[in-house]
């Protein structure tokens, strides 16, 4: 093997036979032998002919949606699973972190678990003795270290496991993003560790579905979908492809963009997203035309409304946190211009906002409420979705001159 290659995966395939009822008893084993056709067996491909090389010192990302085969690939590289065909060559020592605290036993003290977990990572007792104090200090456990693990909070357990894990001094590290769970402080520690590995030019394989992490840490990445490598290469290329794929997965028409129409008792609503060139789209990349997001909304009123109203659009991130709000009541005189709505009135709102968003997916919620907030006529959560990708974590720079124009017909 070329000496600059750390991990070489060649034509790896893996399938799992999924019997509807797993044969774990001899009776069903015998019964199945006598059945001429084994109907219960259903072969499912986890990986199909996967090949790639990871260079030494590279931070390599493996991305894919749930069930795409990431974990299986990870386990095959870590030789936990055996591939059905193909080969994996690993040049150097390798430590997988599919989960922290492997082998932790709740009946043992923190101290004993440190030794046990370290042994699984290949540390001798003498080596652990030397770094023991550092581990305890890093875990911020203090005198709790001699308590039984079952008395620890989950946060304490994770901290202890992580403190051992960061000691792993192997040539190649396999990290699952799932590691970075826990409170913010712990997540920060994790990401600092990832960054430190990057600075030390360690060979790292990071499994993730966060494009933000790929952009932040990885040199190269690949996308797995249904067990196959869809894209491999530069981070930019991979992030763009992944976003496109994700958008397609949630809606096949999404790539071209679409008009979201919804209706309720009070109004029919249409919402269209366009880029700066007025091309309908739901995905915004790093082109100049992607710096503007045009949102065209049209409401056709179906019932007379006796109160003064306002219309608002909320843009939320994937966690449901409001990023920005566009509302007619924010603009002087607009509420008066809308006036009292009657059946058959048509309201068009064209709003143009700067694409100030970071990588990720965003949802637009639309509402039509009375100015006094007493009545809510239309409340449409997740009315539309758009995705921003290929920008890095920073997004476009902020230029707050959002425009909004309103035409009442």
């Amino acid at each position, binding site marked *: 093997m070329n000496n600059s290659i750390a991990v070489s995966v060649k034509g790896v395939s893996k399938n799992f036979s999924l019997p509807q009822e797993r*044969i*774990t*008893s*001899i009776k069903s084993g015998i019964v199945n032998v006598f059945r001429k056709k084994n109907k219960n067996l259903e072969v499912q491909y986890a990986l199909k002919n996967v090949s790639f090389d990871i260079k030494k010192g590279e931070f390599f990302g493996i991305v894919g949606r749930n069930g795409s085969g990431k974990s299986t690939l990870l386990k095959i590289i870590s030789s936990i699973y055996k591939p059905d065909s193909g080969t994996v060559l690993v040049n150097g*020592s390798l430590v997988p972190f599919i989960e922290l605290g*492997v082998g932790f036993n709740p009946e043992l003290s923190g101290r004993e678990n440190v030794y*046990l977990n370290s*042994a699984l990572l290949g540390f001798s007792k003498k080596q652990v003795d030397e770094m023991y104090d550092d581990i305890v200090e890093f875990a911020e456990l203090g005198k709790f270290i001699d308590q039984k693990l079952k008395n620890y909070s989950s946060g304490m357990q994770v901290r202890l496991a992580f403190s051992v894990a960061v000691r792993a001094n192997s040539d190649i590290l396999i990290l699952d993003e799932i590691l970075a769970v826990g409170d913010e402080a712990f997540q920060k520690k994790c990401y600092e560790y990832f960054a430190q590995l990057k600075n030390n030019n360690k060979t790292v394989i990071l499994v993730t579905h966060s494009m933000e992490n790929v952009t932040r840490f990885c040199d190269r990445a690949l996308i797995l979908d249904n067990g196959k490598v869809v894209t491999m290469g530069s981070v930019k290329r991979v992030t763009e492809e992944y976003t496109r794929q994700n958008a397609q997965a949630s809606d096949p028409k999404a790539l071209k963009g679409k008009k979201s129409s919804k209706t309720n008792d009070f109004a029919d609503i249409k919402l269209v997203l366009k880029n700066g060139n007025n091309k309908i789209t739901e995905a915004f990349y790093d082109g100049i035309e992607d710096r503007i997001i045009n949102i065209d909304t049209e409401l056709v009123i179906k019932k007379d409304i006796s109160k003064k109203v306002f219309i608002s659009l909320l843009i939320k991130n994937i966690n449901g946190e409001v990023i920005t709000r566009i509302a007619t009541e924010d603009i002087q005189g607009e509420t008066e211009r809308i006036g009292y709505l009657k059946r058959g009135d048509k309201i068009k709102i064209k709003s143009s906002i700067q694409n100030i968003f970071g990588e990720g997916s965003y949802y637009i919620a639309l509402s039509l409420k009375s100015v006094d907030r007493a009545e809510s006529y239309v409340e449409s959560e997740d009315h539309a979705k758009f995705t921003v990708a290929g920008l890095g974590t920073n997004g476009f720079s902020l230029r707050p001159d959002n425009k909004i124009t309103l035409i009442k017909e």
Partner: protein
Amino acid sequence: MDNFKSKYRYSLILFRELVITDFKIRYQGSALGYLWSLLRPLFMFGILYFVFVHFLRIGAGVEYWPVAMLLGMVLWGFFSEVTSNGMNAIVSRGDVIRKINFPKYVIILASSASALINLLFNLIVIAVFMWVSGVDLHPVALIAPFYVLELLIFGIGLAFLLSVLQVYFRDTAYIWEIISQALFYGSAVIYPVSVVIDQSAFLAKVLLLNPVAQSIQDVRHVLISDVNLTLTQLTSVWWMLVPAGIVVVTFIFGAWLFKKHSPNFAENI
């Protein structure tokens, strides 16, 4: 070569840590802790001793029979622990096996080592009973460890075999429990071989071809009294090849099967 060394080093580190953990967990949370390793057999043997000396007269004519029986019980217990703990060892470590790759045979060896430690504690208690009963030790007693080793190798071989079967078929545990019971009564543990000889000398010879019966009987012979007739005494030295052959073949087959299937454990547990 370097690779082989580091692999071996890893196995050793793991082995050590697994044995220590096993030992610690065994007496976790009890006030007397490790002392139970001695107290438990002491009281159990005390009860058995009492029952056998005063009520059951099975081995009445055999010199030092109560102690010989206790020794048999201890050795049987050791064999039983090696096989049944070994059988369940892989499945019960499933969570670790699914998350990290390491030499799986270490698990089996560590569980056998735990059984061996337990045996040593029991033998200390046996020594006390031997002393109380007035058993004289002869230099030939030095051979005893070899017979224990024979029993250990047989047990590990079976543990390899059973642990693989247990991964694929959970019925294995129940089937082994039954076979194990049959083996217990077929291994002259709680009755002296002389009782069988009285019935049929041929039957006694067949019985002693079983490596468990043969090794237990040989340990009794060298440690306690030569009234405990061994296979070589009843037949000839050459017949020793049968139990020895069974042990070797079982071990090699078990180890081969284990090595062949251990890469598949993670996805089948």
